[in-house]
Every structure is written in structure tokens, then in C-alpha cells.
């Protein structure tokens, strides 16, 4: 017989409160029972109602996405050494949800919520997306503008879970017709999925259990999507008006360009525009230059937007050391990809050259051979910024298609709606990597090929030879892991 378990919520100001293993176990049993009963009862009626087979229903996923072994999320902190401290720095709390019971369900929830983000007008996905939008912006050369960045304080822990659930369901209800999900889900099933994911977040540190009763879980698979949708609804009536010339948001960071001809007192305007029931904001503004994400955005004399790379002062540029036991292709690609990042962000050729030289110097200190770095520079010289800013990922293309179709037209990008993944002609062989085994990848491929060739049946041989063997390497034995495992 299961015992009823109750916990007194003493202090409502706390994000976590102490719990016990038996409380954790009780809640997990309850969660599993709830999933089981939901699948059994609802599935039958759903199949009858919709006249579909079991394979077409979402319920088949629910119980299958519970891991055999699970525990509470692991909690740890990263000391904020870049901020001033007296004896010991404050820590950034992190909860790793890798082995939790709700990991799979959160991933499933994210599959439903992520496509909804295309319909959030001001949302940006990454720096490239931000640069694409900035590139498309033309300001009045004689105008008077201010650059403003706003940050929402401790967004995840301050979000109202009940409201977040409502916002996600509302948005799903409005846009589900426009999205082609491979599997259909009803509103009540989505709500149930959110209840399971958001109401059962336990964390653990050294055998002590804690329950998060405020905000959404940091590190949860669906947390970013939930936060994005919730903030969209919460800020709907804030930071808007004819004064706002340009506005974008990356989760909890906002970037705005304001027309100062329409604002008399900027501080007062910001205070009025960031008045919210439970979200708190910090901001900074400047008329010429401001930092947002990893970009320094500046306005020149003709109000043309100039971008350059912003490096945080605490950044130590600790790139992977060249002597590390990593595949050579990985080591070769790091300077090149960092170079691409510089070319994409820096709009002026002089800054590009300056930043690339500085980057090369840092790689030199990490033991990268001069020959490799020179080759990298030559390859980078053949690339143009326009090509690098071309939208590539499916999600960015879909967002641009809805919110900024003119950018897609400018780059002449066609939308290819690929919803399935074809893996039938590729075989991924995942190996542990050892630099000390000479031509490891070649040995693997050659052994497989020579065995296929030996095959007697011609049909099988030709089919097997068509399969592309891709050798990929899993991460092994980095210093941190070795210390923790020792």
C-alpha cells in the first residue's frame, strides 16, 4: 500500500526546499502510475474517438520514454570568478537532467513546442540570425537613435509555471493547424505532458534531495521553448510603440533600437516599459555602441550599422590544445570555424583582418602548427561574408519565411520541407578515439570493405557496398572526467 506523502511549503520565497529520497520515490511512483493509467484509459477512448490505430497516437510514446534507471537531477555550481567577491564567489546553479525520469518526456514536449517558436516575431535563434536581421535594417541617416539591451533577471526560476503552461497550450492551440507534426497530440495530452515535465523536478546533491517548486527546470530539454513562448506572452504589451525601430530577443536578452526623436526621457521610458508583475529587468543603453550576445553593435556617422566581435573580458580563449587526444579533423576544424565566426560577425574588412590575426596568435599559443594556421588563413580569405550570412538551418529558414520573407528572397533560398531522416544508406560506426593508433579510421573502413568484397552473394555484396560507413569518435578521458572518475 502506498503512503500519502505531504511536505509543508514553509517559505514561498525559496526556489527549492529540502526533500527526502522517500518523497522523491513517492512522486516518481505517482508520476509513473499517472502515465500508465493515462495511457491505458485515454488511449482506448482516443482510438475509438479518432478511429486510428495505436501507431498513430502520441500515447504510445509516453510510457516508452521513461528510462529503466533514473534519479534526481544532479546539482552543481560554477563559481562566478569574473564578478567581485569577498571570500568565495557566488555560483551559477546548474542542474543536469541527464538521468532523470522526465528527460524523455521533456524531449518529446520540446518536439511539439519548438516549431511554435517560428511564430514568435521578435525571436532570434543565434548570432547569425541576429546579423541577418541587422543586415536587412536601414536607418534614417539623419535620425537620432539609441541602442538598448534589456536582460530579464533569473528568468527560469522566476517564471510562473501555471501561466507558462497556459501560454504554451494557447500558442499550440492557435498554430497547430499550420504545423505538420508527424504525430498528432490533443490539447489535454499536451497539458498532461507539461504537468509531468514541469511539476516533478527534483535535484540532488550528495544524497540530499531538493524539490524545485518555483520556476522551470534549468537544464530541462523543453525549458528553452517554454521560456521563449512564456516570455513572448508576458512581454506582449511591454517595450513596444512607434519609438521602437528594431527589436529582437534571445531567450531573456533583448536588443532594441529606439527613435530618440519620440522619447524625451529614456530612463523614464524604460522604467514605464519594463513594468511587470513578477519579472525584473536590468538594462544598458548607449547612442553609439552596445554589446549584445557576442556582437558589438555600433552606429556610424550616417547611422549605418557596424558590427564587430565582442569578447567578454573574462574570456581566456582556452581553445582545445593541439596535443590533445582528439581526431586531427577536429583539431583542424577549430581555427577554421572560429575564423568563419569572425568573418560573419565583423562587418568591416579591417576589423576582420585584425581579429583573425589575434585569433591565430591565440591558436599558436595552444601549440597549433604554423602550417595548419597558414592554410586556415588562405581558406578564410576565399570566403565572403555574404555567403556566410546565408540562412542554412531549417528552423532559421522557417522563421524567416514567416517573419522576414524578404531576407529569403534576397538570398534566393528555397524552402525544402524535409520532415524525415533517411539513414538507410549510412552506417555510423562510433568508436573510442586513440591518437596512438595510426590510421585508425582507415583500418576500420578497409576491414569492413574487404569483408564485404569476400561475400559470395552478388546481390548482397552490391547492396552492402552501397552503404556509406561513417566513422565517428566518442569523447574519452578528458582531464575533468579522469579526475571525477578516479
Amino acid at each position, binding site marked *: 500500500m502506498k503512503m500519502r506523502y505531504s511536505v509543508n511549503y514553509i517559505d514561498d520565497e525559496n526556489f527549492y526546499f529540502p526533500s527526502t529520497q522517500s518523497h522523491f520515490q513517492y512522486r516518481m511512483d505517482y508520476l509513473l502510475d499517472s502515465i500508465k493509467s493515462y495511457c491505458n484509459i485515454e488511449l482506448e477512448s482516443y482510438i475509438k474517438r479518432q478511429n486510428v490505430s495505436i501507431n498513430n497516437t502520441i500515447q504510445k510514446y509516453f510510457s516508452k*520514454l521513461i528510462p529503466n534507471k533514473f534519479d534526481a537531477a544532479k546539482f552543481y555550481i560554477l563559481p562566478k570568478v569574473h564578478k567581485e567577491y569577498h571570500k568565495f564567489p557566488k555560483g551559477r546553479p546548474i542542474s543536469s537532467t541527464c538521468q532523470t525520469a522526465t528527460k524523455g518526456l521533456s524531449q518529446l514536449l520540446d518536439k511539439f513546442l519548438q516549431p511554435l517558436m517560428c511564430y514568435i516575431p521578435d525571436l532570434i535563434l543565434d548570432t547569425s540570425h541576429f546579423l541577418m536581421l541587422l543586415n536587412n535594417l536601414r536607418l534614417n541617416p539623419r535620425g537620432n537613435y539609441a541602442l538598448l539591451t534589456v536582460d530579464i533577471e533569473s528568468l527560469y526560476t522566476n517564471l510562473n509555471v501555471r501561466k507558462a503552461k497556459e501560454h504554451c497550450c494557447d500558442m499550440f492551440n492557435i498554430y497547430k493547424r499550420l504545423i505538420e507534426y508527424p504525430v498528432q497530440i490533443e490539447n489535454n495530452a499536451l497539458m498532461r505532458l507539461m504537468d509531468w515535465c514541469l511539476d516533478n523536478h527534483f535535484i540532488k546533491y550528495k544524497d540530499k534531495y531538493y524539490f524545485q517548486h518555483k520556476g522551470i527546470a534549468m537544464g530541462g530539454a523543453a525549458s528553452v521553448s517554454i521560456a521563449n513562448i512564456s516570455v513572448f506572452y508576458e512581454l506582449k504589451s511591454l517595450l513596444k510603440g512607434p519609438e521602437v525601430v528594431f527589436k529582437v530577443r534571445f531567450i531573456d536578452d533583448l536588443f532594441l533600437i529606439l527613435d530618440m526623436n519620440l522619447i524625451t526621457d529614456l530612463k523614464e521610458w524604460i522604467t514605464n516599459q519594463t513594468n511587470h508583475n513578477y519579472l525584473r529587468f536590468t538594462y544598458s543603453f548607449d547612442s553609439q555602441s552596445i554589446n549584445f550576445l557576442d556582437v558589438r553593435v555600433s552606429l556610424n556617422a550616417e547611422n549605418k550599422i557596424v558590427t564587430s566581435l565582442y569578447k567578454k573580458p573574462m574570456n581566456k580563449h582556452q581553445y582545445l590544445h593541439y596535443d590533445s587526444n582528439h581526431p586531427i579533423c577536429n583539431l583542424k576544424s577549430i581555427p577554421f570555424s572560429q575564423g568563419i565566426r569572425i568573418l560573419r560577425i565583423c562587418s568591416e574588412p579591417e576589423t576582420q583582418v585584425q581579429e583573425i590575426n589575434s585569433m591565430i596568435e591565440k591558436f599558436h599559443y595552444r601549440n597549433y602548427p604554423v602550417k595548419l594556421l597558414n592554410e586556415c588563413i588562405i581558406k578564410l580569405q576565399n570566403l565572403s561574408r555574404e555567403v556566410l550570412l546565408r540562412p542554412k538551418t531549417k528552423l532559421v529558414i522557417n522563421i524567416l519565411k514567416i517573419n522576414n520573407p524578404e531576407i529569403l528572397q534576397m538570398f534566393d533560398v528555397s524552402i525544402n520541407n524535409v520532415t524525415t*531522416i533517411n539513414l538507410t544508406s549510412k552506417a555510423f*560506426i562510433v568508436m573510442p578515439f586513440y591518437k*596512438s593508433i595510426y590510421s585508425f579510421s582507415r583500418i576500420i573502413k578497409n576491414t569492413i570493405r574487404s569483408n564485404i568484397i569476400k561475400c559470395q552473394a552478388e546481390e548482397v555484396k552490391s547492396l552492402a557496398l552501397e552503404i556509406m560507413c561513417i566513422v565517428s569518435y566518442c569523447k574519452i578521458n578528458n582531464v575533468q572526467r579522469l579526475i571525477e572518475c578516479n
Partner: protein
Amino acid sequence: MRNKYPVRNHISRIQNGKLYKLYKTTQLTPDTIHNLAVPVKIPFYIKTILCLGLNYSVSVPPNFQSIKHAFKEGLRKIGWITHFKIFNKESSFNEFDKLLHNFKKFNNKNFSNFHSTEEGILFDKNTVSNFMRQVVSKYKSQPVIVTELINSLHTFMEENNLILKPADKNAGVCIMFLNDYENEIFCQLHR
């Protein structure tokens, strides 16, 4: 008297030279180690290891058993793909199926569901042993950072009751007293 740096006994002269070369190169970059356990002095060899970064992968002797297992798994995949091709059972799966498949794999980590196709048609019994022979013949190693160095680092941390964590915003590595770290954690959890 106890040897203060037991690790020195395990490093050959060549390795010591290589280690010194590594130390010299890491000295050119800004200091990435934050010693929050101030009275404790961090030895030179520990500084060298930590300057390489926590993502530095240490050269260790290969685990031939795991290589063998991974190779067998690769053969199994090829066997199944060929089987599906022969019987025209190929089907591409959507993102939801991929998620389900990953979970199935995670829940049955050691499943060895071999199909007769790969044994009977594709690969003879000696494939794996031949492969392993080749791998062993190609192995040649003189690791710069020997396992003993890592062990001694661990001993040093344990003796001084220290803990090692990456700093926030990728600002380097923090060495701190375990008590201070736990105090901060409990402070956050009981805030």
C-alpha cells in the same frame, strides 16, 4: 620522510622534457587557474595539466575491449541495413521515432541482437580478430601526461580537501576547498 612529489618517479626524461615544453607554451596564455583555496600552493605539474584545459584529452593506452565492442556494433549496424535493403523493408523515420529509438537504445545498453544476415552472408568469424590484430600492430604510444600524473593530481586534491570545477563563462578552472563549495551550494539550495 614522505615524497612530496611522488609523480616525479614515474616520468621518464623524455616525458619530462615534453611536459616542460607544454608548460612553456601554456605560460604564453593568460592564467586560467583560479586558486580560491589561497593558503594551498599548487605544484608546477598540476598547474601544467590544468593550463591545458579541462577538455584536454589525455593519451592513455587503448582499451582494446571497448574498440572490439564498438567494431562489433558497427558490423551489426551494417548487417541490419543490408538485411533491410535485401527484403525491401527500408523505412525512414521521423524525429519522434528517432527519440523513441534513442531511448530504447539507452534502456538496453548491452543488447546484442545480431541478425543471421551479418554472420552468414557478410562477415566471417575472423573479421573481428583480424581487425584487432591490425589495431594492435598500429599502436605506438609515448603519452605526455601519464596516468600517474592524473592520479597524483587526484591525491593532491584529496589530501588538501580540494575540489576542481570549471569557472562560469568559460573563465578557466577553479580550485577551491570542498567546504567552501558545499557551503555555497547549500546556501543556494536553502536560500
